[in-house]
């Protein structure tokens, strides 16, 4: 039956990807470069957006909050996909590492959703005259925050890890119905929130002098998100695998 085990080299990456040890070592090599890239993109984008981009004709300088608000919202949503997909892989293939990624994505997603809501509220005051409005977009983002917090809470609600993981993954998957609602909320309902600035299918509705720094910030947030996800997952790996030989060797190696 050797052919069964040797047959499929193309699946090797999948099994390797499922190995916490391989993940820990590989991300360890990537992290310095990725962190540097994130730092460079974020500082460039922030200085460009805050100091050099022209001010908005209608909103004045308050529009500069867009350089944090839009990237944070982007990653709050993209991070939800990552969490839900990681949960689904965990449910289907019972992959330990996948659950660890899901668990790590929850606090990062919650933090970024909080930032999206917070920067939005601060932007709302000078623009709409109020910090908070029960608008479709804002409310559905608040639900996203509760979904993230729910996934986080379920992890600690069960005695067994396995039960907590499964419950979290199911909540994450059920919660994906909220994502298209968030995207479409500005089109479906007449709301205070302005329609999307960037769409994949059409040109951005803003001048390129304003748009370029936003693009840099979004890329920077993607890199930052990846760094944060790697760091949280690595911490979780060390915690869960603390009895394994390779973690012990790693710690002994670090002591010398």
């Amino acid at each position, binding site marked *: 039956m050797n052919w069964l085990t040797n047959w499929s080299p193309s699946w090797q990456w999948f099994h390797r990807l499922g190995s916490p040890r391989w993940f820990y070592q590989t991300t360890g090599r990537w992290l310095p470069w990725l962190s540097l890239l994130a730092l460079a993109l974020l500082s460039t984008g*922030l200085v460009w957006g*805050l*100091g*050099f*981009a*022209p*001010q908005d004709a209608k909103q*004045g*300088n*308050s529009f*500069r*909050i867009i350089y*944090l*608000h839009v990237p*944070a919202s982007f990653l709050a949503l993209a991070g939800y996909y990552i969490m839900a997909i990681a949960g689904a892989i965990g449910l289907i293939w019972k992959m330990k590492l996948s659950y660890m990624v899901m668990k*790590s994505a929850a*606090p*990062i997603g919650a*933090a970024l959703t*909080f*930032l999206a809501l*917070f*920067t939005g509220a*601060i*932007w709302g*005051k*000078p623009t709409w005259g109020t910090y908070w409005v029960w608008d479709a977009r804002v409310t559905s983002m608040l639900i996203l925050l509760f979904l993230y917090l729910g996934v986080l809470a379920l992890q600690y609600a069960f005695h067994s890890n396995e039960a907590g993981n499964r419950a979290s993954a199911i909540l994450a998957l059920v919660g994906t119905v909220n994502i298209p609602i968030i995207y479409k909320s500005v089109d479906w309902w007449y709301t205070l929130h302005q329609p999307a600035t960037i769409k994949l299918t059409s040109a951005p509705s803003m001048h390129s*002098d304003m748009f370029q720094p936003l693009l840099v910030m979004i890329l920077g947030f993607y890199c*930052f998100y990846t*760094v*944060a996800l790697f*760091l*949280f997952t*690595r*911490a*979780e790996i*060390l*915690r869960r695998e*603390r009895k394994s030989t390779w*973690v*012990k060797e*790693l*710690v*002994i190696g*670090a*002591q010398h």
Partner: protein
Amino acid sequence: MNFQFENLQQLLAMDGHGPFVWTAVLVSLAVMLWLIIKPLADSEAAQKDVARDIARATNPNGEA
């Protein structure tokens, strides 16, 4: 592409929008910093636990 403000005071004031913009910036940076420091501290704590387990295993009675 020019710098949009005459001096530091103007950059901070942003025609009255400064408090809003800079609060958004500071809170965002603080949250992002937390997202980096928290997992690093957790990793550090986990490695210390492992080191303690190893020390206990090699010297079970805690004798020096």
